[in-house]
């Protein structure tokens, strides 16, 4: 039977744990990104990670972008045609994708597809003591293992978000113009009239960069900080997906409130 003071002490301890984890992740990020980086071999590592994190995520991003654009056009058409303004379907699809769905869905998929893989890989490296081995032979694992993965995530996710938007808008055009018979000229010209480069596309890109930062940071840190057992790795992978998704959704609300 726990007394009340025990419970309070437990709460305080878990609170301190959270703050300590936050501090560890901050120091970890600082050390991985700043300080001397070894270009040359570092560049090759970066390219390899860009392939693993970015190129291999292309398929899921393109397929989901296509279907989300198509569904948006279909739903938008059904509602807008009640008001006789189905020409506006282009601007609806484009604005929804550029402002919200493009960055957010890309970040969620990225967390599931690439983030979990990063966590599991680094966690397993830690469990099999490869990270300590690197340290033993005088190679900093933060520089050799962590930094290329972080940078690959930062670079590839905004690119994936842009590809997602383009594919989605194209999918929307396919449904609205080719299937439902919205006039192609009004689909594109309404879109061009309402979408502004600075406030819509650049803000969407800023969102994607922010999400890339958060998702990759969480994924890599969870891997690096996990308990070096098979159970610990599985828990860290779960935590990556859950924390990253929640962080993306919360951050999206804040960024939207600030931007639009």
């Amino acid at each position, binding site marked *: 039977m726990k007394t009340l003071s025990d419970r309070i002490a437990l709460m305080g301890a878990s609170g301190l744990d959270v703050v300590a984890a936050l501090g560890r992740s901050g120091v970890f990020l600082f050390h991985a990104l700043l300080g001397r980086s070894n270009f040359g071999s570092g560049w090759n590592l970066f390219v390899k990670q860009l*392939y693993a994190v970015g190129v291999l995520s292309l398929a899921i991003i393109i397929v989901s972008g296509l279907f989300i654009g198509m569904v948006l056009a279909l739903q938008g058409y059904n509602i807008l045609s009640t008001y006789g303004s189905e020409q506006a379907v282009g601007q609806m699809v484009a604005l929804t994708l550029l402002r919200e769905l493009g960055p957010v869905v890309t970040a969620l998929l990225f967390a599931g597809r690439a983030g979990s893989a990063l966590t599991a890989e680094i966690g397993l490296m830690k469990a099999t003591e490869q990270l300590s081995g690197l340290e033993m032979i005088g190679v900093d694992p933060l520089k050799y293992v962590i930094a290329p993965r972080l940078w690959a995530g930062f670079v590839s996710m905004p690119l994936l978000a842009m590809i997602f938007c383009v594919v989605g808008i194209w999918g929307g055009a396919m449904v609205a113009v080719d299937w439902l018979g919205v006039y192609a000229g009004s689909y594109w010209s309404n879109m061009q*009239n309402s979408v502004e*480069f600075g406030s819509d596309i650049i803000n969407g890109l800023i969102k994607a960069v922010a999400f890339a930062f958060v998702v990759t940071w969480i994924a890599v840190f969870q891997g690096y900080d996990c308990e070096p057992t098979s159970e610990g790795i599985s828990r860290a992978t779960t935590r990556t997906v859950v924390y990253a998704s929640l962080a993306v959704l919360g951050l999206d609300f804040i960024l939207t409130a600030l931007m639009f």
Partner: protein
Amino acid sequence: MRTRTLELTVGLFILVGILALLVLALRVSGLSISPGNDTYKIHAHFDNIAGLTPRAKVTMAGVTIGQVTAIEFDKSRYTARVEMAIDGNVNTLPSDSAASILTAGLLGEKYVGISVGGEDSMLKDGDRIVDTQSALVLEELIGRFLLSTVSKED
């Protein structure tokens, strides 16, 4: 050889990503590569703009020749001052041309239509279009219609 194909795919991926941004910029937002290529500004005062927004089209004979750049309230005249940037190629607008606020379709977007005048002198940068016609406000129109039917019955 393995690293070579790896580098090629990654390079292709980055290219596609940047291309996507370019497509969004040019095709979706309609950004022109050289923005602000010689336009000149004219302005007009309207009694009621009723939903005209910046970036709205300025058309003549149905063809877009410019866009609305700024709308502000002129407190000395109690009218709306609408500033428009007209394409530099279209430099032969007579100075007594008329501007009116029109609607594309029944519920569509508002735009400015310019109808040609007969004066010999042309509009220059900073000039004002004097002859304006306000936006058609549907409520006013219905109100007037109701009033006329009521007075007919009397």
